[in-house]
């Protein structure tokens, strides 16, 4: 690239940047995004706590929910439940009465009673003379607490199963043995093993990061296309080209939009960070941070969480963030340069949406290549095995998907530093190739008026240019 061709890019850059950040759409859009990010960040902190996730972290997950009932009626036509079972049911802390009325009468009465009364009926299900199952139905008076109804129903079913097994001659100890749980894990020999919490981190972080990067890189690339198409279709481009070369316009615009993108990213990051810091003491993140502060003193589940967080982010260093920034810039340039070509290929704004289709497909393909392998790793959430997915590995090296997948790989240490460098170099080479293509054909297509240029036409131009 000759310096003459790029002369004036700084002025294009400055004007594009200033004018874009002054637009109402940018200001309003940023404010709206800030509000959304603040709400999401606060929500991530507060909502799990409201839903009781803090109990899991503090080790109280086994605590039974309080039964909010005033009366339990039992109507057992199977004859399975015994007085002992009725007594066991009484340990729920609610009076239990065997129903003396008919089920219909009692159901009718319940429908007019205040909240808190339930009737559990148990009946055999038959096929001919053979009993094939049992139907346990729980009727409740209006406005009764739903989880209490579920708890009673589940307890009755458990008692019936237990009693049935004893009736078949199974000892209580043997019955308890049948109730033990099993987990299955599929682990490639030599691969690391993840705890459930590590699996969760390795599942959530790539998805969240690929989504955020996709939005920024792809959306601002589209803005580059729109900006160039506006200049071309409004004929401003002809005026610009009496002062600067086409390449200077592309470079100025791509870099300006890149800076806008990074600036908005930082603003949103700061807003998210502030919302996080403000809500952390009241939310689940605060609990996790407390665990991390004294990670060596944690026991049980909390120790597992501390261990998972430490292991997953053990490779973080300032270099990680520098490399993420490099990947972001390269990824942005890759998509923005393509978008610039697309924007320059149309002569009418109404053609832009159609012209953008291949670009959109490319962006969505890259995003899904980064996103889907993580989705396919869902098994790992259940098995606790560190997944090694060839498709995910491919997404790190493939330049269309690497801008979306590499940053999370860096954060989580999924790739070694040499592997990351190789992936970045591949991306850089592709960016350079796209830049060369743009430099070769941009001058020709920017002044082309008439029918929309297709990708094949652009490639032909690149080949034909001496």
């Amino acid at each position, binding site marked *: 690239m000759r310096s003459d061709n790029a*002369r004036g890019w700084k002025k294009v850059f400055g004007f594009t940047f200033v004018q874009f950040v002054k637009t109402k759409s940018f200001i309003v859009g940023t404010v709206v995004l800030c509000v959304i990010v603040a709400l999401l960040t606060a929500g991530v902190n507060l909502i799990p706590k409201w839903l009781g996730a803090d109990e899991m972290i503090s080790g109280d997950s086994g605590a039974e929910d309080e039964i909010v009932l005033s009366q339990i009626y039992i109507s057992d036509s199977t004859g399975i439940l015994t007085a002992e079972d009725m007594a066991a049911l009484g340990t729920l802390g609610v009076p239990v009465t065997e129903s003396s009325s008919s089920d219909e009468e009692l159901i009718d009465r319940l429908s007019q009673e205040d909240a808190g009364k339930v009737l559990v009926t148990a009946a055999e299900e038959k096929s001919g003379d053979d009993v094939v199952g049992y139907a346990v139905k729980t009727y409740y008076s209006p406005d009764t607490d739903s989880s209490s109804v579920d708890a009673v129903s589940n307890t009755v079913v458990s008692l019936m199963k237990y009693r049935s097994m004893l009736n078949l001659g199974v000892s209580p100890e043997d019955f308890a043995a049948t109730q033990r749980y099993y987990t299955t894990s599929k682990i490639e020999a030599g691969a690391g093993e993840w705890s459930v919490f590590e699996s969760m981190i390795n599942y959530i972080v790539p998805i969240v990061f690929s989504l955020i990067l996709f939005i920024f890189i792809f959306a601002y690339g589209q803005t580059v296309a729109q900006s160039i198409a506006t*200049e071309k279709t409004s*004929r401003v481009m002809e005026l610009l080209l*009496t002062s600067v070369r086409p390449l200077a316009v592309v470079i100025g615009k791509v870099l300006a939009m890149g800076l806008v993108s990074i600036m908005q990213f930082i603003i949103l990051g700061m807003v998210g960070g502030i919302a996080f810091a403000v809500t952390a003491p009241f939310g689940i993140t605060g609990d996790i941070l407390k665990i991390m502060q004294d990670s060596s003193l944690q026991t049980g589940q909390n120790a597992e969480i501390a261990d998972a967080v430490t292991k997953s982010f053990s490779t973080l260093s300032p270099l990680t963030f520098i490399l993420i920034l490099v990947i972001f810039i390269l990824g942005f340039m890759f998509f923005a340069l393509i978008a610039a070509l697309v924007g320059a290929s149309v002569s009418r704004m109404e053609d832009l949406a159609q012209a953008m289709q291949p670009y959109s497909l490319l962006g969505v393909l890259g995003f899904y290549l980064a996103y889907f392998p993580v989705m396919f790793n869902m098994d790992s959430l259940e098995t606790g095995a560190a997944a090694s997915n060839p498709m995910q590995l491919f997404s790190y090296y493939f330049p269309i998907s690497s801008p979306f997948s590499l940053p999370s790989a860096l954060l989580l240490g999924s790739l070694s530093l040499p592997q990351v460098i190789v992936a970045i170099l591949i991306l850089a080479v592709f960016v350079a190739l796209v830049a060369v293509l743009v430099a070769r054909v941009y*001058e020709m297509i920017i002044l082309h008026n008439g029918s929309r240029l297709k990708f094949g036409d652009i490639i032909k131009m690149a080949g034909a240019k001496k």
Partner: protein
Amino acid sequence: MSLKVDNIVKTYGSYRAVDGLSFEMTEPGVFALLGTNGAGKTTSIRIILGMLSADSGSVTWHGKKFCTANESIGYLAEERGLYPKYKIMDQLLYFASLKGMRRPEAAKAINYWFERLGVEEYRDKRAEQLSKGNQQKIQLIAALAPDPELLILDEPLSGLDPVNAELFKSVIREEIKRNKYVIMSSHQMSTIEEFCRGIVILNKGKTVLQGDLNEIKKGYGRVKLTVKCEGDITPLAQECGLTAVEETPNGSSYNVSSKEQAHALLHRIMDSGIPLIKYELREPSLNEIFIEKVGESDEK
């Protein structure tokens, strides 16, 4: 000091958009680039401006290879273009900065032209809020603010009302007085005749006529005869070998081959006693030359 365009050729596939265009401006003044639609005028202007590269040939300014980014050029494009959403002053300052002007200097020049063209009140408006004519004035300001040595005006008066057209003309006259080199492309032949000395007429990329307009006209001689009488002079004209090419309320027009042929008709009219109202023997207008030359070229 000159602008020299030497044998430039531009092809798109098998189509020759410009086929060996050459001309030279050795002194300040207005040079006209004429042609029908699609004749290659805009492509030629884009090549001169360096927006497009020619397949062959060269453009030199003061003896050096012409480079738009380095030279002081003002350009008013045929198809007007401004950023619709941006404020007028912001975009004019931007265009001036691309020409290398510093902000205070640019603001001063822009303000002068705002006042000169009577558009001060639009400085903080967005372009989309302006009428087409006012947008055209803003673009003329963009072209003139850097005080360029070379001004290229592609259809400068199209779409303007007579008052604004006259305003533009007065600005062009001022620029000529200030020794500027102006290349003008227009379909309004009367405007070209008013301003231009040198002309090139293009048809389908080829140069069909070129030179000093006065010399070209002189070369044709007085070959356009218009006669208006109070009676029918058709038989008299036929006796002189003339057939009317146009009949209008202002009289009958003839193409004459010589002054003597025209005088012969005049004598016959006088001898016949038919009252003569108008007798005009003149050089052809640029419009007539243009139509003739383009027509000849099309017949080849």
